[in-house]
């Protein structure tokens, strides 16, 4: 198991879990759209950019294309 934090909340996930799958287990929304709508992943394969989060301080990372690693800090926009 791998321990990560999402918006400061600690979470344990199985190895091989993507950040997007981890975030979806605890909350539906990943970001706010330019007009303020709550959005989550659509394509699940790195195309739509709806799953962008801040990963270890790097903004706009595609969470569906990134595997969870120990100690990773995930911050969502919503």
């Amino acid at each position, binding site marked *: 198991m791998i321990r990560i934090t999402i918006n400061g909340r600690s979470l344990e996930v199985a190895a091989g879990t993507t950040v997007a799958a981890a975030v979806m287990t605890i909350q539906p929304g990943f970001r706010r759209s330019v007009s303020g709508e709550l*959005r989550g992943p659509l394509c699940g*394969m790195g195309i739509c950019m709806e799953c962008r989060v801040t990963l270890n301080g790097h903004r706009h990372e595609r969470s569906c294309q990134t595997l969870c690693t120990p100690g990773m800090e995930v911050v969502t926009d919503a």
Partner: protein
Amino acid sequence: MPSTLVIGGGPAGLAAAWAAAQVGDQVTLLDDNPALGGQIWRGGVPAAHQRFLDPSITVRTGVQIHSANQIPAADRLILATGTRERFLPFPGWTLPHILGAGGLQAMVKSGLPIAGKRVVITGTGPLLLAVGAYLRKRGAMVVLIAEQAPFSRIAQFTRELWREPAKLFQAAQLGWGLRYRADAWPIRADAGSITIQGHGKIPCDYVACGFGLVVNTELPALLGCAIDAGQVVTDSKQRTTIPHIYWAGAGSVDRSILEGQIAGFDLERARPLYPARDRALRFDRRIDQAFRLRSELSNLAAPDTIVCRCEDVPFGAVWQQRDWRSAKLQTRCGMGPCQGRICGPALEHLCGWPASSVRPPIFPTRLENLLDERR
């Protein structure tokens, strides 16, 4: 030793890399995803195809190609960038419980728990059935599979499947016990539900929705390869119109593997595979025909339905524009981070606009990445 670079590590790219290694090339395989397998083999290459993972192949995953200068030099380039789903906007489709059909499957393969969740699957194509069978196996309650194609077309297609007993068996196995209905499509989504034509409002945790597949032509187009009607133009050896650049994949798994091998092998070993590839291609064309989009789907979007999710552009602001270019300039539709990959195919169907030209970077990237290339 001649070198081959393969971009895309799904079935076609893996088959291509393996075939190129068989004929003695030095092979490098790049993929954007965290692991090889593409979408269909996300979570592991099946045992029957493990041979494609030849240890002599140099594999680099998590690599995003955003411009041509970033592509390492090689004697031969094989592009296998695959497909994405087509989405058609309907009221409420931007709510977080609405995902792609392949999208939700990819999320579950990537660790999303689905057991006990109520899922409605809708859109079109054989993928809906495959996704339904997969999600059910993982414990989801698949409430309904709503297929837009008319019952008569599906029935005719199923009758034709007698010529392909293996495929008929596969379809029967996947669909057994699933509630599959033709002539049904999404009308609107509200928080915690989806309304399906002919089936009313259905409460659910997730909607898995996809209206067929669109080829990821951005990279071949950037490199100058001819694209026709959304497909990369190739000859029988899978050569594109640009010397030394090949294209493989973007259909069924069977066809992708054959096209990958034909692209990767030399002519002598590729040629015997042509008839099987042509047969797989004909089968894919029959699927496209059976599951073509019905005209009612053009009327799903209301004037205030968002078409471009990146820039939140409603359909009402776009539909009276002259073309795709004018929509971009006047409304910013397609100008956000996905660069029109989602709204482009939707507007192609809704307004009849063909995709516009591609310019680098084909994916958003950091400035330092572009500066690195110049050094």
